[in-house]
């Protein structure tokens, strides 16, 4: 067993994959915490679909320019499309709150359809997109790793450094505006960071499952905590552990890493949601949450 783990860790492919998984596992839940707080859990999905069009566009430009490999521009294309898509959603949300939902739906459909159409225009087949849709750790190159590390560092630095301000604008936008916070800049920063996170995680879990990695660790964490900061910290730890364990499992079982990671995350969620009420009851039995409040009703005794 131990030898096999050492074998795994000495495979360059797995080394790169595990490093990517480590970074994705740490970054995705940070942005996920803000998205869940804003009740925009599905934003990551919308961005992921748009990023697919970006991948296809990168492919098209690459084949027109005769680049080898053809998909050399896939990641830059995904980053650009994801950022444009995320900012568009944010602007639509700010203009009229009711149509944000519809805008998201349009992005879902348009993103996938555009991606397939463009990849066929580029002389490819929609199966070329599979690696991006479901992730493929085997395509992670050292250059990819450097880009991933840079994007992850930016998101982590801003996402953690501006935590109080990003929390304030996600928790109560009206109060944040009344406080004089640059609300629009912060909102767009969250959208752009979410877009960068999606493209960072694309290689590991795939665009269709990126959002799960942002949301499920947060969903697990908030079962066990009562504070925003602790939710974020616990979600980061869970994200790292689940990504690394899930990816490692694919060394022994031939399976798609993205699918394994997400199924593992949901299994952990199920376990914790079953265990949390039991643990909580043992720690503090149900009690009056406001024992010191005086009653404001006088009951006459007869």
């Amino acid at each position, binding site marked *: 067993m131990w030898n096999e783990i050492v074998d795994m860790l000495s495979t360059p492919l797995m080394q790169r994959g595990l490093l990517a998984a480590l970074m994705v596992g740490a970054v995705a839940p940070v942005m996920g915490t803000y998205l*869940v707080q*804003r009740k925009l859990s599905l934003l990551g999905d919308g961005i992921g679909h748009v990023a697919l069009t970006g991948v296809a566009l990168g492919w098209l430009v690459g084949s027109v320019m005769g680049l080898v490999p053809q998909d050399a521009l896939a990641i830059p294309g995904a980053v650009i499309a994801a950022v444009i898509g995320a900012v568009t959603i944010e602007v639509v949300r700010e203009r009229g709150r009711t149509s944000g939902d519809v805008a998201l739906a349009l992005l879902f459909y348009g993103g996938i359809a555009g991606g397939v159409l463009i990849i066929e225009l580029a002389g490819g087949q929609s199966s070329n997109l599979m690696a991006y849709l479901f992730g493929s750790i085997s395509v992670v190159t050292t250059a990819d790793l450097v880009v991933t590390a840079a994007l992850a560092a930016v998101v982590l630095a801003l996402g953690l450094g501006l935590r109080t301000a990003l929390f304030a604008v996600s928790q109560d936008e009206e109060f944040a505006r009344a*406080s004089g916070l640059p609300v629009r800049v912060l909102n767009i920063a969250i959208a752009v960071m979410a877009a960068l996170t999606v493209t960072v995680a694309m290689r590991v879990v795939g665009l269709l499952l990126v959002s799960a990695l942002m949301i499920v660790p947060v969903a697990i964490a908030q079962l066990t905590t009562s504070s925003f900061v602790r939710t974020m910290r616990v979600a980061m730890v869970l994200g790292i552990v689940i990504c690394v364990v899930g990816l490692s499992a694919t060394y022994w079982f031939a399976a798609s890493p993205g699918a394994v990671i997400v199924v593992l995350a949901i299994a952990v969620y199920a376990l914790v949601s079953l265990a949390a009420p039991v643990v909580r009851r043992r720690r503090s039995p149900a009690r009056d949450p406001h024992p010191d409040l005086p009653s404001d009703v006088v009951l006459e005794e007869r």
Partner: protein
Amino acid sequence: MADTSAASPLGDAGDPVAGDVLRVRDLAVDLGGARILHDVSLDVRSGEVVAVLGTNGSGKSTLMRALVRAVPVAAGQAEILGHPLGGRVPWHRIGYVPQRVSLAGGVPATAREIVASGLLGPRRLRRPRDWRDRVDQALADVGLPGVGDHAVTELSGGQQQRVLIARALVRRPDLVLLDEPLAGVDLPSQVAFADTLRALVASGVTLVVVLHELGPLADMITRTVVLRHGRVVHDGPPLAPAHGHDDPAHEHLHAHEDAVERGPVSLGPEPFCAEI
């Protein structure tokens, strides 16, 4: 847009404010195609405690929300602390208590985290070093010592309201805008809250309070503004409460014949019992 540019020629927080804290001229606000506020003009001087009264739909909350830029102004001007609404208003000197919204976001948050967001401002995107002491002090000031670590969803409605007030006070504002701070708050909490506001007024803070009924705040109000259908219909000395309404324990749950016959707001010597 340029929310970050805020240099106040009036000086920093703590300086006495000269003249008008708030100047509103012919303000109009449209929402969803309907004109909610018409030609609202209002001056508030330093140290005043102004109650804004009116029925539901009279535009009280819209006025407050327009002042903090939560809704756009269609016509007219508003100046806060000497600056027209915008990035140059010293927002760090203004405390805003919105009408109670659900404090429950998608992620749990503690009372301390909610109140700490009140420490941020135009040029402050990170908490100051002494944030924890200031937040705990603000929570103690509104009568909630020791709840800092509690999830806000564990707190009662009245306690959540006081968390929102602590969030506005922690920044040590010179002008506090409160939108129905007493709604849904039980009487003991209302009295405690009135004491908090009284201490603020004694230290020179200006208050503009949207209310349905004066309750325990009655004796500190220096001026009353009544809105009806989006227009100012009264701006002057505090209205005398109707018989029985001066008792803080007065129940507002019975029907008022006067109020029903004359419409929800009655002026002059009659009760202005806005809500039944």
